[in-house]
């Protein structure tokens, strides 16, 4: 049974999503949304010390595009040297994106020839469908989503294209059924993340039980070739996962994607809420919408924002969400139990446990590592 949320309580604190980001970085991340981000933008050029850190953040957060626009609009004052750095930083980042696009076109052709259905996640899909100017949305790899049943065939296509898988499948079919994704290094120049679901942990496993390609693809033209990208409702759910449940370094760009998708008319709210419910991702979507609205001070653009603000998570959702953000070893153990439950049936849960045990017995080092974590859980004071 769902319990009412305490007044003013948020599903996820915005600070968790934008932790350690300077105000001017958040200002750039929100630039062009038509919201009052100006308090976060400087009124005069940053001094050399702050500029050094700021430039590093622009690289790490992939924000040169939005900064270039803010500078061109006169909204972010820079001196001559800084202006040149913005131009060069943006050009270098765009060059990287164009090279990734070229590789994606080749990948799309290879998938088409093997009849592998896929969607481009984030990246160029967001750039071409959500932003005023595609050059504002930068990316550093190619993410594609396939159905679990097609995962191993898709992986074979990537291998045939010269891709070197970072981590081999711990056992045949494991990632296709229980994993999140596999990363392929393409000649040392770029990477492809091949996804079969949207996140690690119980939310990702629960979503991965369903057809994540159910919403008809949106087709964009890249280099003259039609390429399927995630359609709006799926894109919002995927961006929400990436915002609230990041698997690696936390970036603010997915949060900006969430904000872009909240603009009027972009997402069918009924379809989005229905898909999120089917994929057991409702609390993730509601949390991401709440955080985007708070961080970027968005106006109410549509019904999804009041829906998110009033959403009352179930006890199970609260538990899963809290444990996702808890690094304590005990939470790790409990999250594994959550994952078993997320698989939805005793047979699937049993298969997951057996697969994990087989993986662990085949590779004693991770098992020892895990055992160490369990020991920590028993004796939390130990280090």
């Amino acid at each position: 049974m769902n319990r009412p949320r305490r007044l003013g309580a948020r599903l996820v604190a915005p600070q968790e999503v934008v932790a350690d980001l300077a105000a001017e970085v958040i200002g750039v991340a929100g630039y062009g949304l038509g919201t009052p981000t100006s308090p976060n933008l400087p009124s005069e050029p940053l001094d050399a010390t702050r500029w050094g850190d700021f430039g590093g953040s622009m690289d790490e957060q992939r924000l040169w595009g939005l900064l270039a626009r803010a500078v061109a609009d006169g909204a972010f004052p820079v001196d001559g040297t800084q202006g040149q750095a913005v131009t060069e930083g943006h050009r270098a980042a765009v060059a990287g994106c164009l090279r990734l696009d070229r590789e994606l076109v080749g990948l799309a052709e290879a998938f088409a020839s093997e009849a592998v259905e896929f969607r481009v996640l984030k990246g160029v899909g967001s750039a071409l469908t959500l932003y005023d100017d595609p050059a504002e949305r930068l990316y550093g790899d190619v993410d594609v989503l396939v159905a679990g049943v097609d995962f191993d065939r898709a992986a074979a296509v990537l291998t045939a294209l010269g891709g070197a898988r970072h981590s081999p499948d711990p056992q045949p079919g494991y990632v296709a059924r229980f994993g999140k994704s596999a990363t392929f290094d393409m000649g040392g120049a770029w990477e492809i993340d091949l996804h079969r679901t949207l996140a690690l942990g119980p939310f990702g496993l629960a979503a991965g039980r369903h057809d994540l390609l159910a919403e008809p693809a949106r087709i964009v033209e890249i280099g003259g070739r039609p390429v399927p990208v995630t359609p709006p409702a799926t894109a919002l759910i995927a961006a929400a996962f990436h915002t609230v449940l990041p698997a690696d370094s936390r970036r603010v760009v997915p949060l900006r994607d969430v904000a872009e998708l909240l603009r009027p008319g972009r997402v069918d709210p009924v379809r989005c809420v229905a898909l999120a419910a089917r994929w057991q991702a409702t609390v993730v979507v509601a949390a991401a919408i709440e955080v985007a609205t708070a961080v970027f001070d968005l106006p109410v653009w549509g019904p999804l924002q009041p829906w998110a603000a009033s959403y009352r998570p179930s006890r199970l959702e609260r538990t899963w969400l809290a444990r996702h953000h808890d690094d304590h070893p005990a939470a790790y153990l409990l999250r594994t139990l959550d994952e078993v439950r997320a698989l939805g049936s005793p047979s699937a849960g049993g298969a997951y446990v057996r697969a994990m045990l087989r993986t662990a017995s085949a590779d004693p080092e991770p098992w020892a590592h895990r055992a160490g974590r369990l020991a920590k859980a028993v004796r939390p004071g130990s280090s």
Partner: protein
Amino acid sequence: MAPAIEATTVVSRRSDALWRDTPSGVLVLGDDDEIICIEGAGRLLWLVLEQPTTMAELSAFFADATNDLSVGLERGVADLAALGLVGLA
């Protein structure tokens, strides 16, 4: 040899070009992996070529610009053609 550029010549942006418009110019990925930056009036020319356009139409468009940019248009089109970024027919 490139065809002569005349008023009736149709100029077409390469359909498989990978490019972005930025505040400092249009960046296009060339065949040799180099990034070509098209600035100034060239950037405007690239953006106008969203559809195949005759030289006569381009001349009229650029003559109407705040500063008459039609001077040098033929040279600009020829440069883009030499880079393989536009086709002439």
